[in-house]
């Protein structure tokens, strides 16, 4: 069953209106529906979840007043911010200042066009999907630079310049890691990349060979840097640059930047899942049931698998943010150009060499990579448990009461 948003838009086209006018109208309608029904709650709930997860790490409670466990906090924040005055500094470059949040937002929302939520649940399966993704997510840097420059504030300017340097630099290791995957899949289409993988972990590209495992970490790190996440959140480093490029923004425009940031978290997870973690792939038969015979159940299951896998990385990003300090701008650049770019190159060439030796992959190598990763994970979890059980004092807020 093939179904794309293009079909939906076609179906919505009113017959009386000529296609050149009607098609964009219908497209806007669909985009608006998707935006308000899926992306806005996703970014909003992510913001709430981040605050809750973070609060737990910091012995706090976090927002818990609006709705059950505070899950509607994001709505309250949104309503509050819409009511706020939209301040435009007198000396700002008015047009650019007004435009910048939307450019950042467009860069983030555009990414959803090619994110495959299931075998038939993708807005548009472009044949240059991943290339489009790299291009459209870079749009954010234009908006950030615009915001930094047009605010006519030195902190904003510093933030914007940092952001430009950072995002442009980290495109390279990210692009090289993506290239590694493209060599394996032989296609740029997001669906094609997922179809080249299997449902089992040893069939995922992350465990294809040791080089792709490293490429995965290179990609995730670069993606964090491109998404301005801790430890790479130097463009909005609140202890140094006040609020970086958003210093002069208020109300809804301010919210748009953070909307994009929290939404981007999910986009990072989704791209990572697509490229390395088998995307929505599920077994063809589960408990003797052939999935192809139940398209709806298959779709729901695929969506769930994809969503869980990608949201896992959102949680990892939150965890990292709760743990690590921020790097300095020169250290950030040194890390990118001195370490990550060469390592990503090595991964790319290593994968090419292994592809020449085993054109169809080597199952033993994949299993060995998977086993190694599992061992590392088990050791890590054991260490965490050990620290909690053996060396951590019992923690309660008032130890002597």
């Amino acid at each position: 069953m093939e179904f794309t948003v293009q079909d939906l838009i076609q179906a919505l086209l009113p017959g009386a209106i000529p296609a050149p006018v009607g098609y964009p109208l219908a497209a806007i309608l669909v985009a608006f529906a998707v935006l308000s029904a899926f992306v806005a709650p996703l970014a909003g709930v992510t913001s709430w979840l981040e605050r809750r997860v973070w609060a737990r790490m910091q012995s706090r409670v976090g927002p818990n007043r609006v709705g059950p466990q505070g899950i509607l906090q994001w709505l309250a924040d949104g309503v509050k911010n819409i009511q706020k005055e939209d301040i435009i500094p007198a000396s700002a470059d008015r047009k650019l200042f007004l435009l910048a949040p939307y450019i950042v937002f467009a860069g983030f929302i555009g990414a959803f066009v090619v994110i495959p939520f299931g075998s038939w649940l993708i807005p548009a399966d472009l044949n240059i999907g991943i290339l489009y993704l790299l291009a459209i997510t870079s749009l954010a840097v234009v908006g950030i630079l615009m915001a930094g420059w047009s605010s006519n504030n030195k902190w904003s300017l510093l933030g914007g310049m940092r952001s430009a340097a950072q995002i442009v630099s980290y495109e390279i290791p990210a692009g090289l890691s993506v290239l590694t995957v493209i060599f394996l899949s032989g296609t740029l289409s997001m669906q094609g990349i997922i179809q080249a993988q299997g449902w089992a972990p040893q069939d995922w590209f992350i465990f294809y060979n040791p080089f792709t495992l490293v490429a995965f970490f290179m990609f995730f790190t670069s993606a964090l840097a491109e998404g301005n996440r801790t430890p790479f959140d130097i463009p909005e480093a609140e202890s140094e640059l006040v609020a970086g490029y958003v210093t002069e923004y208020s109300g809804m425009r301010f919210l748009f930047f953070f909307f994009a940031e929290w939404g981007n978290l999910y986009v990072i997870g989704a791209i990572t899942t697509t490229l390395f973690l088998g995307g929505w792939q599920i077994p063809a038969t589960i408990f003797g049931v052939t999935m192809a015979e139940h398209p709806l159940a298959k779709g729901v299951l695929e969506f769930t698998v994809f969503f869980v896998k990608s949201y896992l990385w959102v949680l990892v990003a939150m965890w990292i943010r709760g743990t690590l300090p921020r790097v300095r701008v020169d250290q950030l650049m040194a890390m990118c150009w001195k370490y990550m770019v060469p390592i990503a190159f090595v991964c790319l060439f290593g994968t090419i060499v292994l592809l020449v030796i085993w054109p169809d992959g080597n199952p033993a190598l994949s299993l060995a990579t998977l086993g190694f990763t599992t061992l590392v994970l088990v050791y890590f979890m054991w260490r965490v448990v050990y620290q909690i059980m053996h060396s951590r004092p019992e923690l309660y807020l008032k130890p002597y009461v």
Partner: protein
Amino acid sequence: MSEAAGSTGLHTEDMTLNVGPQHPSTHGVLRFVVKTDGEVINEAIPDVGYLHRSIEKIGEKCTWHGYVPYTDRADYLAAMFANQGFCMAAERLGGVEVPPRGEYCRVIACELNRVASHLIAVGTFGQDIGAITPFLHALRERESINDLMEEICGARLTYNYLRIGGVGYDIKPETCARIAAFLDHFEPIVDEYNRLLSNNKIFIERLADVAVISKEDALQYNLVGPNLRASGVQWDIRRDIPYSVYPELDFEVPVGRGERGTQGDSYDRYYVRIRELLESCRILRQCLDKMPEGPAVAKVARKFKPPAGETYVRIEAPRGDMGYYVVSDGSEYPYRVRIRTGSFTAMSIIDKISPGIMVADLIALIASLDVDAPEIDR
């Protein structure tokens, strides 16, 4: 504005940045006028005075007893020490002998306060480097200390606990037990804090070899307390010009050893404070063991009128050598009170160290000096 022609012949200008007074990392209302070339600082001039409350002048208008609560405000993160400095000066002028139990109560309260103050210092340090979690973990422990303080003297921040001649309230045995329980809880927390922040690779990279203050500079610029010790000078008023019951206690004076880089770098200034946390715990345990019975406060006339004279008292506050120069003309009011604080001198070295470091390093430098705006301006 200085102008420089780069190697490319391009005409460039320094950018003047106004850091503060409402900047998130200036710990109160400090202001720095910073000239930068991109991210690199050419000059950073501190501008102090935004939090001046004339505490010294108020001293001339208050009775001796009445001035003690004002000293709380001289450094609200370590109010106990500001109390103690003034009380010791008044006692020395008036020839008042503090009973031993009173001295022990003072040291217990002060060392608890030192732990609280250092927790703020290392916590905000983490926050300025970008790690928010350690800050809240430090504040969580500080809340416990605040609760203990509330139990000791009824206040959580500006204690007004010390009196001329002793302390306001005796520390009860059950409070002592709770302090001991807190120490049992707190000492392993320091290890956890080290795992979370001090041994973090990014944190070390950010601080090691950054803003190094040499031994000579530290002495020339009159740094005191942990900042001086981090540069390798083993100098602690508690040990070298002993006061109160410190001579009876066994403790070490940690100095910067250049653990992760050069001696006197930002990391040393951070780590000296972590080690002082543990030393304070050690002092507290000894005090709890040795506490003698007896009254906690000496009989002091309500209309306290010390004979005319002057004195200078030095104590080791969390931000270093805190000095009270108090002059009495034999009346009910001090003739002059002058407070010397560690943060004020620490501010002067920023001008010297800052050229060549980056904007982010300036924040680390300010945080590592642990300057505290109310203490700078008084």
